[in-house]
């Protein structure tokens, strides 16, 4: 079963009088457990693609399926529920909630999917990601790498089948980025979780099975 | 951006202008409207008029004459103080009857404590020849609550009063700055002016007043200037006059002379000035002999010529030196103001002051000169008339 499928997806924005096709009849297939890196020039539409996949944005044409469900045909609450239960999101700027501790930030994903919080589970995942000692700290007291690990934990805790990551190492230095990529790869492998990761970094792309380049609204396999 | 800045500036200026409009100008502004001050000079029908001679009785006629529009008790006098000090005084009570005669009868229960048939005005002035100072004070009162009135025995406005004494009168009046306390004793009998006291001043019936005088009154007593008391003696003059609309409309004013000559004769002359500047044919006078006999003078009997004008601070020219010719008595006199500044500037603007009388440069007597109607323009005229109207 495909984890994520884009079928001739078009997304366009009007720029003044003309229409800009950010995504143009785009096709994409991600198999279960498959990790795909999406690269491409800035402004080529990578984030747009991720937002569409997450159901946070809707295509102008075409169809998007996640685990067989046509996300683009669900209504807003259904999409939200679907996203919460099946997907995990990782952002470049982590987007942690300042007022909550690392633990609570991770817990948030469980709460939003109405799952019982198992403290041991959180602690175990944190241990896996190397952030167990900082669980009771707030985001402001964490380093960039730690924050991104918390964000990854938040994306994984509710056991999604698809991770959507938008430049997860974009704000990190090389060494920290490598650390984070390492734990991410490890966690995904253990869970048989698919991932679409937008990145500019070759190192990041290297943890993926496949690299696609977004150019003129379409994906082409990297050379 | 410019548009928004302009918008802000506009709103701000609007606010500022609005706030600026909230301030009141400092101090009082001018009166916006006066109640229709009709400038009528003639008295309404309800007042009695003097139309013919009628016998006068004394002391009954010393008292006031209700029913007439106006009446006055007019003292002037030249006094000698210590060390040759030269002093002059004026004390006048004016009575102006109000139009509401229906409430004037004292017998009815009046609707107000202040209901009055007339209002009274008193003028008190003192001329100090040494310092050339002119003191003046004016006061008013209603003819109610015993504030003002005139009986045979007493003529008064509050504490300024003239009381009858055995041989004449006792005049007492004063302010903080100056005061008079004078014993007055007539030296000659009463002079009835005009035709036995019927003094015609205009062509119309009713352009006349009842008029009598005491032209020489021996005077002694005290004059107070500030805190200084001066013993004085000299001669006073009393004019008594009442009537309604005695002046005709075309008159501008009058020049009135009351002269006491060293030879014992007294001379009263008044020149009624017409709008064209000439003397009215109703100008008149009287010449009183030493023994009290007198001769009434008419306009043709005398000639008055102004020789010198004094211009006051307001720019009004007052004729203060005169030549006087009375051929029938073979009199050729010069009249000079003792000093210029003897001008009233209260409700009524006029010149009233002591004068020297000379003949060919030699002093031959003293007197009082009254000049009226020179300053009666605009506002002042309205004021004067507003008071006379009452």
């Amino acid at each position, binding site marked *: 079963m495909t984890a994520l499928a884009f079928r001739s997806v078009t997304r366009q924005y009007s720029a003044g009088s003309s229409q800009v096709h950010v995504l143009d009849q785009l096709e994409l297939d991600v198999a279960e457990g498959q990790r795909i890196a999406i690269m491409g020039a800035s402004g080529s539409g990578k984030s747009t693609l991720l937002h569409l996949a997450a159901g946070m944005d809707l295509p102008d044409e075409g169809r998007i399926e996640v685990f067989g469900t046509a996300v683009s045909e669900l209504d807003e609450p259904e999409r939200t529920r679907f996203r919460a239960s099946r997907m995990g999101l990782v*952002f470049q700027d982590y987007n942690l909630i300042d007022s909550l501790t690392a633990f609570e930030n991770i817990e948030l994903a469980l709460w939003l999917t109405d799952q019982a919080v198992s403290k041991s589970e959180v602690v175990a995942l944190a241990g896996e990601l190397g952030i167990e000692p900082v669980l009771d700290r707030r985001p402001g007291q964490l380093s960039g790498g730690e924050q991104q690990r918390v964000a990854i934990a938040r994306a994984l805790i509710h056991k999604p089948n698809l991770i959507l990551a938008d430049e997860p190492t974009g704000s990190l230095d090389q060494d920290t980025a490598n650390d984070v990529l390492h734990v991410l790869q490890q966690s995904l492998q253990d869970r048989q979780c698919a991932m679409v990761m937008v990145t500019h970094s070759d190192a990041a792309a290297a943890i993926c099975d496949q690299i696609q380049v977004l150019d003129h609204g379409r994906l082409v396999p990297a050379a | 951006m410019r548009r928004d800045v302009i918008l802000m500036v506009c709103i*701000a200026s609007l606010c500022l202008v609005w706030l600026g409009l909230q301030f009141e100008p400092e101090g009082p502004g001018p009166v916006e409207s006066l109640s229709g001050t009709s400038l009528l000079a003639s008295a309404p029908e309800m007042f009695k008029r003097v139309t013919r001679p009628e016998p006068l009785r004394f002391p009954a006629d010393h008292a006031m004459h209700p029913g007439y529009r106006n009446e006055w008790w007019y003292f002037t006098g030249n006094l000698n103080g210590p060390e040759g000090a030269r002093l002059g005084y004026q004390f006048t009570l004016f009575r102006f009857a109000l139009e509401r005669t229906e409430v004037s009868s004292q017998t009815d229960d009046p609707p107000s404590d202040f209901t009055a048939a007339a209002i009274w005005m008193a003028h008190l002035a003192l001329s100090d020849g040494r310092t050339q100072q002119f003191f003046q004070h004016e006061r008013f009162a209603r003819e109610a609550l*015993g504030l003002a009135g005139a009986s045979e025995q007493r003529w008064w406005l509050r504490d300024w009063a003239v009381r009858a004494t055995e041989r004449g009168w006792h005049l007492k009046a004063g302010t903080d700055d100056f005061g008079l306390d004078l014993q007055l004793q007539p030296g000659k009998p009463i002079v009835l002016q005009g035709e036995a006291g019927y003094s015609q001043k205009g062509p119309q019936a009713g352009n006349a007043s009842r008029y009598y005088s005491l032209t020489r009154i021996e005077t002694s007593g005290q004059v107070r200037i500030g805190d200084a008391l001066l013993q004085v003696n000299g001669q006073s003059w009393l004019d008594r006059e009442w009537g309604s609309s005695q002046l005709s409309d075309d008159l501008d004013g009058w020049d009135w002379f009351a002269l006491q000559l060293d030879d014992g004769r007294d001379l009263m002359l008044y020149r009624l000035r017409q709008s064209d500047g000439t003397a009215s044919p109703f100008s008149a006078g009287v010449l009183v002999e030493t023994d009290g006999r007198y001769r009434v003078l008419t306009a043709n009997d005398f000639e008055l010529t102004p020789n010198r004008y004094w211009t006051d601070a307001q720019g009004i020219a007052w004729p203060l030196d005169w030549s006087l010719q009375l051929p029938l008595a073979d009199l050729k006199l010069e009249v000079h103001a003792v000093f210029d500044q003897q001008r009233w500037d209260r409700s009524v603007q006029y010149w009233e002051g002591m004068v020297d009388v000379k003949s060919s440069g030699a002093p031959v007597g003293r007197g009082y000169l009254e000049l009226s109607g020179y300053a009666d323009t605009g506002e002042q005229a309205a004021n004067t008339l507003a008071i006379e109207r009452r």
Partner: protein
Amino acid sequence: MQARITHRFFKRHLGQLLLALTGIAAGIAVVTGVALLRGALLESLDAAGSVLVGEQTISVRSETGRVSVRQYADLAVKPGAPDWIPVLRLPVQVNGQRFEIVAVDPLVAGAATSPMLGPGSSLASTIDMNGPASLVIANRTLNALGLDADDELVVEHQGQVVELPIAAVVEGDRSMDRRLLMDITQAQALFGSRGELSELWTASVSSDWLDEHLPPDLVWQTSAERRDSAASLTAGMRANLTAMSLLALATGMFVVYSVLNFLIVQRRHDFGMLRALGLPPSGLLKLLLSESLLLAAFGGLIGLVIGTWLADQLLALVAQPVGELYGQLPLVESAPSPGLYTAIWLLGLGAAILVSVPLVREAYRVPPGRLVRSQPPRGWTLVQALGFGLFPMLAGGLLLLLSSGLTAALAGLFLILSGMVMMMPAAGFGLLAWLGHLMPRSLWGRSLVLLQSSRSRIAPALAALTLALALAMGMAMMILGFRVALDDWVGRLLQADVYISVDRTEQAVTPAVQLDDQTIGRIAAQDGVAAWSSIRQRRLADGRRIAAYDLPEQAWPGFEWIDGTPDRGQFEAGLAVFVTEPFARNQDVAPDGVIEIPTPQGQKQLRVAAVYRDYSSDQGVIAMNGVQYRDWFDDPIRDSVGVYLQPDQPLTAWLDDLSEKVFARQLSWITPAEVRQQSLDVFDRTFRISWALALLVGLIALIALTSALLALGLERAREYATLRALGLSPQGLMQLIMVQTGGLTLLALTLAVPMALLMDIMLSSSIQPRAFGWSVPLDWPPLAPLVWTVPLAVLAGLLAGVYPALRIVRSPLIRNLRAD
């Protein structure tokens, strides 16, 4: 360039700009309004004399009431007497507003050149004494009435209505506001007030002359003395107003702070970028300060305009009570001066700079370059806050305890309130955290916990909201509590079945019947009368009042004794008097003290036996035996007679008997219930101004609430987007925001209620006695204000929350996710 940055920003955030301007304008408006109102109360002080006669006016009044016309006539003809101007003042109603007829003798008044009428014009030439009765009115008063010079004024005096034409319109002076000048003859004739005068004026007279000639019951005062004593009358009222307006300003400043603060939140990103591009800190300082100042300058101007308008509205509210209570006429409109405007405007600028300081500090903390989310500054911990807050509270408490002055009490109130305000954010957020932890797993708990990160942002708005709510509720509680006390007092005071006085409406001209011994004898001789009481009131020249009582057994429970021993025998023997609480406080007398009163028989000394509760006059009343009073003052008349009927005697039948058989329609009567209603009506009118202020403060609370919630929404936009991205549904988000806004409102209310109670207690037990002399018995605080305010505030809070919530929920998720 800097201007362009500012311009672009505000252009994009017009709503915020308007909110900021509103906050500043509202604060300035309240201060301006109250400052002008204060001025209007002060400037209106009775200076009619100095306007008509000149600055040096001396006025002569009677120690014992009115100057008789006879006395005037005697004084006028005394040797060396000055030009006395007889003055009759008559309280009248015009257009339902309180006015005063000042009737003078234009003849005498006109002889002195009147400053009011300008050079060359005398009153004598302005008022036509010959014509029908007419009025001279000042321009501004005429405008305020909305009339023209050709219109007639409908003037009501003691039930008698007359139409009077306008003789002249003069520029006048402020002290001619609400005063109508008339010829005394016409006024006496019209209103039938012969025989007595209110006072005599003169421009100049030596004190020696006065000492020599003034009869013993007449006293004289210079203009300045008169103004001073008039000023002291309304001092308490003005002090209260000022205190309230300053509190309103403080609340307004919190609003300004939170609005400016929230403008900065919006621009953290811009600031970071500008700093990265090389803008030095001083440049940032300049940018922020000039923006604050521009906002304050512009908002201040608008505030001045609104405040001026407000002052006139407030003035309309106080005109009646000030007249009723103090015999004073306020101006017809406020009298602003460039100085006052400038001062208040500068105050606004100063406050803007003040609130900018912490904001600039915060802006400095934005690191240059790419945005790294910096930790928002932490507020004080609860312990710190308690420590810092306790300090001013203690100081305030000490001030209240140690001093007895009104200003000190107000300062104490201020300190205590500011201490509470300092504790408020920490206490409030502590409470929130605790609540949040009570229900950790629910949306509610989460929502409240999520609020914590906005703490520094919300704290000032929360403080403003709490303070405003507490002020509004505390004032309302005090007013209502006082009203209850007044009601109790009136209810107790009026022991008789009916009170009878001479009917003034039927016969405006001197009534044929007077309430003297003979009339009272005839009333008492009626069948069914068990007992009767009587009272005669007299105002002494210094403002003290005498109430001369004839009291039967039945009347005595009407007094509520506060101090001393009310010895009835001594009172009835004329050996002792009772004084009211305000009297005791104002004159500083205690039981067994001795007071002196001037009587026609000279100064008399009276021993004070006891102090009783009274709310009828804040100047104080001396209650003395009627027999003694009539002896000393030679005044056999009573103002009113209370009749106690026999138990089986129906009131209506008795009254029918009285009116038909005894005094056909010459007497009027009033039942205790009616008196009570009238007293409460007067009370309600008196406190309209306080209600208005409470309402204004409530309005500021609403602005504070809106700004707080908007700030919350905008600050949390990214957080909300993240939650949405992580799977929170739009409904869930909406609910979360509503819980947060509702929670904040409830929090503010929770904190405001104890503060309001404290304010009520302080106002009732400290401020009232010091301002007016009377105390209000401490009782259960009236809860009506809470019952009203709580749902209203929650509703307002929810409404104010809905808008930003809707905006956030509807705005594109992706943009908020990215933008920061």
